[in-house]
């Protein structure tokens, strides 16, 4: 079964510093990977995805993610974090057909950016 792991429950950074949220994956076949963000009392919002192509994927709100096949990782990054980036971040993987309806999420990482 496809799965993703987020090894850090919490990440704390100062505003203006680089932000990295880690994700590793375990899949059979080609991975279809996603990052979502959840602000308090809101639903999940899509940030970016990796399907094929360039290993560096750019997404919304200045976020990017680097796909690394040898390390089976898909870390989310932002060069300069903002206080407004404080939220819960989820890495997710889509199952291959015929179960490709299913998007499985990691446990989430809470990001706190201090002013």
């Amino acid at each position: 079964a496809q799965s993703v792991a987020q090894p850090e429950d919490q990440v704390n950074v100062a505003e203006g510093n680089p932000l990295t949220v880690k994700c590793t994956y375990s899949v059979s076949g080609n991975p279809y990977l996603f990052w979502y963000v959840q602000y308090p009392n809101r639903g999940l919002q899509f940030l970016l995805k990796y399907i094929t192509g360039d290993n560096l994927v750019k997404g919304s709100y200045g976020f990017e993610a680097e796909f690394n096949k040898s390390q089976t990782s898909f870390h989310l990054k932002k060069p300069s974090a903002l206080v407004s980036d404080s939220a819960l971040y989820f890495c997710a993987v889509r199952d291959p057909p015929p179960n490709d309806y299913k998007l499985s999420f990691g446990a989430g990482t809470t990001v706190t950016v201090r002013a």
Partner: protein
Amino acid sequence: DTAVSQTPKYLVTQMGNDKSIKCEQNLGHDTMYWYKQDSKKFLKIMFSYNNKELIINETVPNRFSPKSPDKAHLNLHINSLELGDSAVYFCASSQRTDYNSPLHFGNGTRLTVT
């Protein structure tokens, strides 16, 4: 314009009651989902419907019954509510024919069973 809307936003009820949560999407998607987020924020898929057909039915008590009257709607009915059902329930939608398309989520329904 709300893409995926759920009602109600909050639901407080007593054990043993029956309640429903409604979901509607105006994105023209053909696939809809119910996810449950527990108190530790862990997200788990419950059901998925494609063109009104049940596709995914994870290990969920049969007290939970989804119903999809059309492609734009997916409701969740819960019988005999238990304390452990307290969670946030998210509806989502996507386009099955576009494998790359992300899921679009509603803002959730916070269910509290007392």
